[in-house]
């Protein structure tokens, strides 16, 4: 069951420790500063743009791994790799294993969950690229230009929040029912 625990651990590290409690918090503080007079002091805004914002690029890889591996790592069919279910005959496994998997997909609406998470990650990837492009075209230079991108930043933050909620809704353990 090591791999299963690995997925659960990596989900907690990505979603709880990083996305929800670090990245989104930093993003929300940035947005709050951007909307208020504090933004006359560009230093704190630039700090976010230089240190926090770019972390998505490498975290995106982890997000894709979690979503792409979920079905394989967390399906109750993993239980057939260890005693006592590995004692079932091959003839039984032929239908029981896919049956257990199909029932699990059905119960937790796994295909919809995974598709939603994929669309959100793709949306964040696209948003990140677009924002990065605008920043490299001079947007980073002034608070005025950053403010002009406010809607785009808000959309980006909404997608991050949605992704965190979506990953939070994935079953937390190997569910047998």
């Amino acid at each position, binding site marked *: *069951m090591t791999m299963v625990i690995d997925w659960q651990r990596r989900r907690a590290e990505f*979603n709880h*420790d990083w996305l929800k409690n670090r990245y989104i918090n930093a993003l929300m503080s940035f947005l709050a500063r951007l909307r208020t007079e504090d933004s006359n002091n560009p230093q704190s805004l630039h700090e976010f743009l230089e240190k926090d914002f770019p972390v998505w690029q490498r975290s995106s890889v982890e997000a894709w791994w979690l979503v792409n591996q979920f079905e394989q790592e967390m399906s109750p069919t993993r*239980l057939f790799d260890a005693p*006592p279910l590995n004692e079932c005959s091959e003839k039984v496994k032929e239908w029981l294993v896919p049956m*257990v998997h*199909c029932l699990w997909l*059905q119960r937790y609406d796994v295909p919809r969950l995974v598709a939603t998470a994929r669309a959100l990650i793709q949306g964040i990837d696209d948003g990140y690229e677009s924002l990065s492009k605008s920043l490299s075209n001079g947007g980073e230079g002034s608070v005025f230009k950053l403010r002009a991108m406010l809607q785009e930043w808000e959309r980006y933050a909404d997608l991050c929040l949605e992704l965190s909620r979506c990953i939070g809704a994935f079953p*937390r353990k190997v569910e047998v*029912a």
Partner: protein
Amino acid sequence: MVNVRVFDHNTKKRPQDDPFGKLIVELLRIGKDLGAGISITPITHGNDTDAVDDLSSHEIAIAHIFPHDFKVLADKSKTGSVCVRVSSEGLAGKRSYKTTNGVNCLYLLPSHTSLNEGDWLPLLKAIIDQATVERIVNGQVPPELRRYFMATSGENLAALSILCQGYLVAFASSQKLKEEDYARGPIKDALNKMGGWQFLKDESNKIMLQKAADGYKDAPGGVLHEGWWTIFPGSISEAVSNEIISLGVAENEVKRIVALISKIQESPVIQDPELVACAYLELSEQRNRLF
């Protein structure tokens, strides 16, 4: 007097979610129930760094904080003190330990938002008892605390539940049952719970359903054959009862489950889907309580 200090870093960030409130209210109430020997005080002000400083000066700290802050807490705390980390996400895969400077670091594995008074009472009693804490950090977790501090998958309970599901799908597909055939009863409830009715309706499962239907027979590999239930080391009731006893299930509950499983065991060739459906529903309820 044992002083327990509690902190949740979400207090200021997301008070609307109020996980801190839930945790503190539970702990304060239970602290009173435990009597005069324990004093529980929450930290309701300051930032995470201030809170870690405050927590580290107490004998027992229960904290919902980040991993790096918990490490700082463990480093700063005094020898013999107890630091408990809780998380709204749960702490799957973490193992409690003792630091080189003798601080006991406990990881509470289930999400703290899933715990209620019935969980916190034994937990607090354990956390304030030095001998129990020693056992936990040494990996000798008392049975009644295993579900909180030891990763366990309950594979025998899960396996029996899966065998029941296989039996019921084989039965339903061999009889070409439809949900409308049942107004109520354990078979309808069981198939509902496991997602079976939808599964039986889905055209894309046709080949698998045919194989399952073929499995409804008294021959090797079939669900009516005694071999269906004999994958466990020893008897089923022994395997399952040992497992649930080790997870701290109360004696009367264990007896009830064993009595139910014994019915399966006593009739190796079970031609009674209702009995299997009842067993499945009972096991499912038990699993929900334990995991």
